């Protein structure tokens, strides 16, 4: 293909995006669009999978049978989200096993929030409420992104995420209505998860490297800062209702803008965790690598067995 032909294709591609026509797997797309999407979708898939670990940490200690079942089902939902997303990435020509190995080799990223530890039962409430809550802001936007399979996966996922968010909030509500010890546990969890949740939206717009092109391709429709503000605006009244306060002395309702003003984010901490020095980065990857390595013989056995079955079937067909 000549450069001129590619230019024409790119122009037509952009016109279709502008006209809100979804891109489907068989459509022509710029190589960079494909790469950006694979990177983003797989990063998102990895986050779902790594995200199973901090919450999984409390399955064995859930305080009631009802909570145990709900938490198990929630963590299982996240595995399902990971599956949908890996499938969406595969429509772009990526391979799940390769994507997984990129994660284990530290070549692919996942949401930094999962590098924080879950220290008490209240953390399970806080994660559902804040982390799933923040994820929803991003994911609702992504239901309208330009790549069809990704957008459709997001629709399914969003329904479950909002259920998770309500469930997490309900845990917090129960604690907030409980004993002094329980209230303190809830407040402590909010203190620890608040800032990392705000960091989930990524660097501020001025610093964000991929934003402009992603906006143009409608992979993204709102900026990091817009989404973050939206999250703060819906979450603060929820914290008030719980009788808990977020750890930000600068937080103030701004009558003029109709939004909450909030204090500066510690971006040094954000980059420290992104670069591998969060409290649990090593543990998380180690746990995933252990599952992968110890599962190797199982995957090989499943393949070998399927192969044998196929051979036997073929032999049977021949002799018949």
């Amino acid at each position, binding site marked *: 293909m000549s450069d001129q032909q590619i230019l024409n294709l790119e122009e037509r591609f952009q016109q279709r995006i502008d006209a809100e026509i979804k891109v489907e797997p068989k459509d022509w797309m710029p190589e960079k669009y494909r790469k950006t999407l694979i990177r983003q979708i797989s990063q998102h898939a990895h986050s779902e999978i790594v995200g199973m670990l901090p919450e999984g940490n409390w399955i064995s200690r859930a305080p009631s049978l009802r909570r145990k079942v709900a938490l198990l089902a929630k963590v299982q939902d996240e595995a399902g989200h990971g599956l949908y997303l890996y499938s969406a990435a595969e429509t772009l020509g990526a391979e799940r096993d390769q994507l997984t190995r990129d994660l284990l080799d530290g070549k692919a990223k996942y949401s930094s929030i999962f590098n924080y530890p879950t220290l008490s039962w209240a953390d399970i409430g806080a994660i559902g409420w804040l982390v799933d809550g923040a994820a929803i802001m991003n994911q609702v936007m992504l239901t309208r992104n330009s790549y069809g399979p990704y957008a459709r996966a997001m629709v399914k996922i969003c329904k479950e995420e909002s259920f998770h968010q309500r469930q997490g909030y309900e845990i917090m509500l129960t604690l907030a209505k*409980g004993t002094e010890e329980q209230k303190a546990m809830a407040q402590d969890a909010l203190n620890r998860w608040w800032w990392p949740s705000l960091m989930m939206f990524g660097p501020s717009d001025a610093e964000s490297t991929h934003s402009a092109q992603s906006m143009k391709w409608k992979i993204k429709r709102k900026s990091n800062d817009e989404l973050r503000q939206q999250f703060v605006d819906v979450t603060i009244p929820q914290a008030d209702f719980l009788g808990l306060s977020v750890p930000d002395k600068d937080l103030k309702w701004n009558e003029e803008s109709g939004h909450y003003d909030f204090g500066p984010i510690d971006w040094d901490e954000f980059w420290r965790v992104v670069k591998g020095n969060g409290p649990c980065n090593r543990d998380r990857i180690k746990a995933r690598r252990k599952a992968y390595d110890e599962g190797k013989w199982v995957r090989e056995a499943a393949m070998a067995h399927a192969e044998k079955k196929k051979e036997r079937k073929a032999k049977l067909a021949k002799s018949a």
Partner: protein
Amino acid sequence: MKERLFDYILQLGDNSLILGHRLSEWCGHGPILEVDMALTNISLDLIGQTRNYFQYAAKIEDKGRTEDDLAFLRTDRQYRNYLLVEQPNGDFAATIARQFYFDSFHLLFLQELVKSKDEQLAAIAAKSVKEVSYHLRFSSDWLIRLGDGTEESRTKMQEGVDDLWNFTAEFFLMNDLEKEMAAAGIGVDVQALEESYYAQIQEVFEAAKIQMPDYKPGQIGGKDGMHSEHLGHLLAEMQYMQRAYPGMEW
């Protein structure tokens, strides 16, 4: 009679709970994402069954105890589950062996329990039968896959099957409680299931190219509250919140 029925229901619920708990330990660590989800499904079914049993037991007892009191505030000596289900997960082959031994029994058991004179128990059993048929299909399929997969998987599967074989005796050796309940037409005459159990197992082993273990199973005690060292640790973890913060709503 009411007390005996209460004890009997607890025994059923304990098995589902302890095995459900063990399986939940796999969540997030499974060898394949799809298997991770399937193990969690089974765990969810089993803990759901436990809740049905415990809610019913609490109602029969009528002393204001809840399903959670029964799960989180009994000691190991008060737990009546089979030794098999409290055994640690081990590798995936050990988990499959444990699951297969239990599922094979569980299904036969429930198919009898649906005929119980106790309507509530029969209803719980009827609902569970569907779930457990799926569990058995999952564990048999994997047993066959691993047995008839690679050399490595066959060795591991054989080892899992050999190690846990010892615990299958407990299913069929009836204690007084089980005899009483079976005689009353409420419980299951488990001894009568023994023959078909081992015949079924042999069939799947053959398909999996797995050898029947070459010793007579004989480890018992769980049903009467004499457990292995493993159960204490499991309960310490499972009951942590209720023990550390007594009497709170969660």
